[in-house]
């Protein structure tokens, strides 16, 4: 009998059920979409913030000071310590190795260049980089960590013949030497006459807006053979997904008790990733780039905070709307309640029937709302963050399904309760007379 009442109620009162159902459906859709966006916003914004470049930098502990003014390096060319390129593979083995999204080693080289063989030589600085390097499955290199570099032409590739290097030239230097893509020019190790000359081919011209505009960019391998320092790198830039710094992140891990230290170690703070890099690579000093890391954390915190608060607002609004719709749906049916009471149904049985209806409605409309909301979140995310690659995937977060349905259930039942209680408290004959 109970099930029959329940089924008939859904079959015969389609309009009323539709109204309450639409309210729940829309409410859960909005809440699911907002929650799905709020939980994924961190990764999305992190990807956007990648334009600011590396957030961790590694250099040899024993290195001399950088003596750079306005991008001109006046550090003595000789001396200085190097890191080993072959050691970089260890970056993938650290605890948070999977959070490393980009690696770009650098090796600066001093050289002299001339437009044509025999022309007076000009001192120029060159830097060896990875360009499209396969770093154990991760395609990375300088262009990936400096997305604001604008290239005309193509990045250099390693050539077998050391006499014909492929290089990219900074825009200012290219202008000074009147070089275009495809041109050849002469490079020499020092300005003194006797040393060996070789030629280089310009494969591209890069504009960066900083001192790199005056530099020559070559492959790391070429830079190493040029200086005769095999396997050497001077500095490594690392881009890693991190958790914004809090007070706990700033403590010195070696001063913590073992248990706390473990927790510190296993959180993806920039500090703990830098600590793990120092452990993994001998002789290396790793530091967070505070300008990028601190500010990114700040922006990330604000934007995701905003999304969570908006989600809370959506939740509140949807809650109000659903409970108001449920209350109306019950109020409309006081006549039915009066009839059932006068036919001998107990208050408990009637309440159970109404709660069962509300529950069924909440589960059905809530599930549909979850699916609709997930689709909407995916669509919104893909539209807003278009062109970042890999963001168009559907956001189907399974954890959200029980959460959203449970919320719908709670709100629907809480919304119906006052109306059910009022209706049950009234005298059945009075209701029936008023509604006759």
């Amino acid at each position, binding site marked *: 009998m109970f099930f029959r009442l329940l089924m008939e109620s859904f079959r015969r009162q389609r309009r009323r059920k539709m109204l309450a159902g639409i309210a729940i459906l829309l409410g859960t859709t909005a809440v699911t979409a907002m929650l799905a966006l709020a939980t994924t916003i961190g990764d999305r914004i992190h990807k956007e913030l990648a334009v600011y470049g590396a957030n961790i930098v590694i250099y040899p502990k024993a290195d001399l000071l950088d003596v750079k003014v306005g991008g001109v390096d006046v550090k003595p060319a000789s001396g200085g310590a190097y890191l080993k390129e072959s050691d970089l593979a260890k970056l993938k083995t650290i605890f948070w190795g999977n959070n490393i999204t980009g690696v770009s080693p650098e090796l600066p080289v001093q050289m002299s260049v001339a437009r044509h063989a025999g022309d007076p030589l000009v001192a120029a600085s060159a830097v060896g980089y990875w360009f499209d390097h396969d770093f154990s499955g991760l395609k990375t290199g300088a262009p990936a960590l400096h997305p604001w570099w604008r290239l005309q032409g193509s990045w250099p590739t390693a050539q077998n013949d050391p006499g014909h290097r492929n290089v990219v030239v900074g825009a200012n230097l290219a202008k000074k030497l009147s070089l275009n893509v495809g041109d050849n020019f002469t490079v020499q190790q020092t300005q003194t006459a006797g040393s060996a000359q070789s030629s280089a081919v310009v494969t591209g011209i890069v504009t960066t807006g900083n001192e790199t505009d005056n530099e020559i960019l070559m492959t790391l391998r070429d830079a190493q053979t040029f200086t005769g320092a095999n396997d050497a790198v001077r500095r490594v830039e690392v881009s890693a997904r991190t958790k914004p710094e809090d007070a706990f992140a700033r403590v010195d891990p070696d001063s913590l008790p073992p248990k706390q230290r473990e927790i510190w170690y296993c959180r993806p703070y920039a500090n703990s990733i830098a600590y793990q890099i120092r452990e993994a690579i001998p002789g290396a000093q790793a530091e967070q780039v505070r300008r990028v890391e601190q500010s990114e954390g700040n922006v990330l915190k604000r934007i995701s905070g905003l999304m969570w608060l*908006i989600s809370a607002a959506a939740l509140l609004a949807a809650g109000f709307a659903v409970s108001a719709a449920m209350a109306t749906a019950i109020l409309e049916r006081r006549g039915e309640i009066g009839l059932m009471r006068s036919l001998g149904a107990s208050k408990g049985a009637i309440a159970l029937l109404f709660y069962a209806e509300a529950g069924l409605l909440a589960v059905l409309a809530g599930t549909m709302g979850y699916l609709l909301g997930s689709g909407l979140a995916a669509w919104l995310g893909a539209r807003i963050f278009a062109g970042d690659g890999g963001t168009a995937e559907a956001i189907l977060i399974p954890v959200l399904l029980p959460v959203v349905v449970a919320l719908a259930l709670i709100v629907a039942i809480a919304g119906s309760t006052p109306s059910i209680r009022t209706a049950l408290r009234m005298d059945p004959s009075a209701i029936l007379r008023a509604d006759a």
Partner: protein
Amino acid sequence: MTKPGLSGKLSLFGMLRRSLIHRRARSISALIAMTVSAGVATALLTLYADLDAKLHKEFRSFGANIVITAPASAPLRPDALARVQDIAGKDALAAQFAYAVATTDTGTPVVVAGTDFAAVKRLDSWWQVDSWPEPSTADAALLGQRAAQFVGNEKAVALNFAGHLITLHGVGRIKTGGEEDSRIYMPLAAFTAWTGVGPSVIELQMPGGAATVEATMARLRQTLPEMQVQPVRQLVEGESKIVDRTHALMYGAVLLIALTVAVSVLATLSASVLERRRDFALMKALGGSQMQLMGMFLLEALTLALAGVAAGFVVGSAAAWAISEGNFHTAALPHLSVLPLVFLLNVTIAAMAALFPARVLRGLQPAALLKGE
């Protein structure tokens, strides 16, 4: 204003008042619904109106986005900083720097920079400094954490610039992970007195998006043609991109929530109108025309909508203030400019809620309804 065909004692407003008061529970629930819809709309629109300014403010923590460099031949003019500040407006942060290479007591070359510590502290908020020097001390120095390793005595830093010696009082270390780690910073006046080198670089933090930065740069180039004005490209580009995307996200969220609330409120209200078929039938039987009755319902809904806007604006502005204070640590003051939009939204919902059931009601036969069929 008496209604023709009704008793002279029953005015339209009398009926309205009685209808609202008699069905108090129903009126209150409708009023709550209208308040929620107006409140949510107000809160979201208020936040939305301020969003760009607030986000741009957060991006200030990235520091300078414009770098002004003097030509190699000549230092900056003495009034350069004042003129830059004048062009950029008082919201912009600017600091000037002078650089020279000196040797430390251990014989290591090091870059020494002269600057105004108070300006740098505001401009470069990401610097981790254990203690900023007092503005009054002329010989205070901040040591980059790497530079500090090449200094014999951190409390009395002895530096040599082309034979000129100076001893600075090191008050703390700087940690940034960037070039600053290899430098020693000191007050500009003492720096110039020691080296004879004047400031050559002004770093400027211009709040606002790419368009504002471009416009400021154009003005700077026009007024100070001898200087090189460069944007910090990654900052300018990144900021605009992120602000635009957050803006779009917020726009989507506002539309979504507004739609949810509007449809739910519409459902609630129109159900409550539909429920009053008996009133409708009675009035019709007493001689009211279709138009009069619809007008009556409409007026009732509009009254509720108006009350909802008044209450919702207050509630929504308070919510926006709380969200803004909680998230951005700055208050979002109530925007009266959102009021017309909120009003329009609520009135539309109310009008639709009143008129939506009109089709259902028109077909009803008063006699049949009153009989209970």
